[in-house]
């Protein structure tokens, strides 16, 4: 029955073991893909005919921006699963996503403004993408703030799950409001991201950076989720054996 994996993943001891293995399996491809992306982006790919070498920042900015949104969505989906099916593992995953997502949102904002300086002449430009990214950061900080304000873990899980779900519903609304707002005031300054044709030597490193970033996130998240599962586990005997097994 296809749902078996879903229930098996739901059981903390199983998740704790599986996640441990996945972290090891994912770490290496992430490093390799990342290395290829970095070298490709910095050295092999030709300069952009308009922006010259400054364009190479896209190889870190785009994956970071992609991660910030993908992580928030993952967080909201696992929070919803945790709330609806009352699965502690899902809440553990949601709790693990928050700080990783916030850190990559900050990275996306920083690399975005560093990229903006040569293009727009200023470090901060109320560009629709950057502004949405900033508001996404506030959503993250609100989530992290609420979670840390409630001591009781199960209650913090449920309250922050409601916030994550409300937040994810609002992300597209906020984004398109900002795009609408920006389009009125000045010419849309399109970031050199959605270019029609990109030579493969430019595209391949970018794709591998995207993949590396995603694998890195999953590995990071699963590492934290294993800890979060332990914190949510009440008195299960399995913790004892799992810890002995690990340290042995």
């Amino acid at each position, binding site marked *: 029955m296809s749902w078996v994996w879903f229930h098996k993943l739901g059981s903390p001891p199983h998740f704790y073991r599986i996640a441990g293995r996945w972290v090891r399996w994912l770490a290496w491809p992430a490093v390799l893909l990342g290395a290829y992306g970095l070298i490709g982006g910095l050295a092999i790919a030709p300069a952009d005919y308009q922006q010259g070498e400054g364009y190479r920042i896209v190889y870190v900015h785009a994956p970071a921006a992609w991660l910030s949104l993908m992580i928030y969505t993952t967080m909201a989906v696992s929070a919803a699963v945790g709330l609806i099916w*009352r699965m502690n593992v899902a809440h553990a995953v949601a709790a693990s996503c928050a700080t990783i997502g916030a850190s990559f949102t900050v990275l996306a904002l920083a690399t975005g403004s560093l990229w903006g300086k040569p293009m727009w002449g200023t470090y901060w430009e109320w560009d629709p993408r950057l502004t949405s990214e900033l508001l996404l950061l506030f959503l993250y900080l609100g989530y992290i703030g609420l979670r840390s304000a409630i*001591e*009781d873990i*199960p209650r913090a899980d449920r309250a922050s799950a409601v916030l994550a779900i409300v937040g994810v519903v609002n992300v597209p609304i906020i984004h398109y409001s900002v795009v609408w707002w920006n389009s009125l005031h000045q010419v849309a300054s399109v970031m050199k991201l959605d270019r029609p044709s990109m030579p493969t030597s430019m595209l391949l490193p970018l794709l591998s950076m995207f993949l590396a970033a995603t694998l890195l996130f999953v590995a990071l998240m699963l590492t934290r989720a294993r800890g979060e599962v332990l914190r949510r586990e*009440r*008195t299960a005997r399995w913790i004892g054996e799992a810890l002995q097994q690990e340290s042995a």
Partner: protein
Amino acid sequence: MSELTADNLHLWRGDLHVLRGLSFSLSQGQCLQVIGANGAGKSSLLRALCGLLPLESGTVRWRGQDARSDLPAFQRQLAWLAHGAGLKADLTPIENLRYAVGMRRHGNDSAIAGALDQLQLDRDSQRRLVRQLSAGQQRRVGLARVLLLQCPLWILDEPTSNLDEAGQQLFADCLQQHLSTGGAAIIATHQLLGLQGTQPTPLELH
């Protein structure tokens, strides 16, 4: 067939395992008295039974049906009296009861006044703001709400706290009347309930 059955209830408060696989059943006309040291989880158990606090595991069945499957229907069957007054301080007892009972069923002012008289709250206090009443008087207004809701199941947390001797006797009579008409009750209190007929069954939490 019992009114309310709970089996294998587990509940934690922080990392304190307050309910460890608790099971019990409650039939019509029966009163369960929950006793235990402070912090043993008496209030948590009662709030969990009402559906205010989610249980980590275990089920609560009301007349054979899982309470959680249709929680509003189950909650309409019970009257919950918390440790606090559960009243608006800036309303009079009559106004409080008109709104609190009106939420559930069509009450009318004469029934409300009747209930307050039954609990011997003098007419003058019935029209003063709850803020100006003593804790004992506020407790009587809370008990009047429980009477007026006319629910088969009472779940009361320290109902006789702040009540004087006469008040406790009044409550005992109301409880006796409730049980004799086939009602059931779960009460967390250390005081003797002073029932005449069948004595309350103790439920020990340790």
